[in-house]
């Protein structure tokens, strides 16, 4: 069997990292396995935090940095390291690219989602949530994303962001309130969820 064909489904993170650090012939397969395990988690964080375009860039840059870091340092907790790298990358990217929201000067007309079922309404809801997230302040958005997209505890979020748990609680509470406020014209139409 060729090295590339080896599957690491049952291998632990430490074994995979060791293969990468020692630059074994199976490093490609090991890195591929780690990617398959954690790419969803990292993608959720990056895209929810920065949007699709910048989120994808941050996602790719995160794994590039992780690969180089795994080759020269001992990593104990892969998801924690990936989240830390992703957070730093996202903050750097946010600093480099200032987002501006262009708003129309026309007088808008309030409108509710037409009561229809199907895939379209679901996609529309996803887009509305993305817009709502984009409108949150970065710190508040980050706390909310770490909590509800990464399923981290308040304590973990506090450790990662370096703020007290009470601050995390307030940020998440504030994020929910703002999201509810933003989505209030449509929140009553979300019956199918």
């Amino acid at each position, binding site marked *: 069997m060729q090295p590339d*064909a080896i599957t690491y489904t049952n291998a632990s993170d430490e074994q995979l990292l060791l293969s990468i650090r020692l630059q074994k012939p199976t490093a490609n397969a090991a890195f591929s396995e780690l990617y398959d395990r954690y790419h969803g988690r990292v993608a959720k964080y990056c895209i929810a935090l920065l949007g699709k375009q910048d989120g994808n860039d941050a996602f*790719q840059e995160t794994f*590039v940095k992780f*690969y180089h870091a795994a080759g020269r340092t001992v990593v104990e907790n892969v998801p924690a390291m990936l989240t830390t790298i992703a957070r730093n990358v996202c903050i750097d990217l946010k600093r480099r690219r200032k987002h501006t929201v262009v708003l129309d000067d026309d007088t808008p007309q309030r409108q509710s989602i037409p009561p229809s079922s199907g895939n379209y309404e679901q996609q529309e809801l996803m887009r509305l949530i993305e817009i709502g997230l984009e409108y949150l302040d970065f710190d508040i958005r980050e706390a909310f994303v770490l909590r509800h997209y990464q399923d981290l505890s308040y304590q973990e979020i506090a450790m990662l962001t370096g703020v007290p748990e009470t601050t995390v609680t307030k940020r998440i509470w504030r994020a929910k309130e703002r999201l509810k406020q933003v989505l209030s014209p449509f929140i009553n139409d979300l019956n199918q*969820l």
Partner: protein
Amino acid sequence: MNASFREQVHLYCEGLLPEYAENALFAELSANSDLRAEMTEHLKLLAAVKSHAASLRPASGTKNALFAELGLSLPQSAVQSATPNAAAAITLPQAAVGTGATLGGQSTLFTVFLSLFSSVATAFAVLFFLQTGWFQGGSKITDGGAPPPFQNSSLLASDPTNQAFMPHDTIRETTTIVRYVPIVQNAAGLNTTNHSDADGIQASHPNSLPTNDSEQASQQAQELPMPTPIAQEPQPSYPYRRSTHISASSSNPLSQEVNSSLPLHERPVSNTTEAPIFSRTKLGIIAGIRGVRSRSLPEATVEANSYPLFNNTALSLMLPLSPTGALGIEVGQEAYFLRYRTILPEQEQIVGIEKNPVLAWAGVSYRHTFLPNDLFSPVMNFTLGGTSIGAMGRTMLGLQYSIDTKTRCTLGVEASSLLYIHRDVWNFSPNVGISYGISFEL
């Protein structure tokens, strides 16, 4: 509503509410309907966020790009496992285009259905007209030559001298010029019994005109010397010489004698492979103006601004590339109904925007005339251009009527679509309508 209870709802949903506070919250929930609604909203929001989190995934091909950036080769097992994922990821944008192009999914389907139906109907109409030979006067196409378009028309049916025309002869003028007389026409081709116009003129002026063609020929032969030098001149390849009057031209003894004096092998024979002499399409600029009575799909709920001088109007300048094709530029104005969502900064709410602005557009246009030498011809016009907010495409299918060699009228159906992006989401606004216009060859 008590703010502390709202915060307790939040803490309860997060699993952070202490047990000793739960009973108080439950008691308040059973008594307070607003608080129950607050909790319902809270749960709906969290469910929506969970659904959103599940939908987030990296773009297709990211893994390949990542391995390529790292200089790694993607393992075989990863390639096999990544392929279905990539295919699934690729299908997502297509579904988004199909269902999310406008705010109403039914409107999109209706628009697509209407576009398909109109395209098929137009294609059938064109095929029907071509199949029945309506545009070709029911004639057959001769070897290498254009069909005589009006061979069966009433104009020529009442004119038996048309029998002297060659099968490949083409009459271009229909309004200002009654008929063209072929130079190769010989005496046998003349039908003297059908010169009713000449007879009528002769009846009114019995002393000034000969009684028939033979007398006229002999009379003019006596008055005019034989133009032998003319007979030696090389004859042009024109099959016809334009006459000023039916009777005078059809019985012109000069032309008859000139041609009859030529040897048979030197007589001019029309070359059917040459371009038509009196072609309508000359290599000059064609300026056109047309109006469009269009409506948006779905129907606009907001009235458009009114610019009565130039609204729903297009101006074009076309340069003919061939007898059938012309390329040029077009500018115009048309109202496009726009619907999208945005955020109100003051209320911090997402709102729907509906507006119907009149947009100026400009683009490159290609016009194809299917039967450029005929009185009626189907035409197709494509325009690709843009407006101040996005790209625009237009297609017009219609029927062109040639008033004379330089003036044409067109009536048809026109569809246009405006493609614009708002907050990274592509939207399109289609219009369908009737187009009518006139063009002049400068």
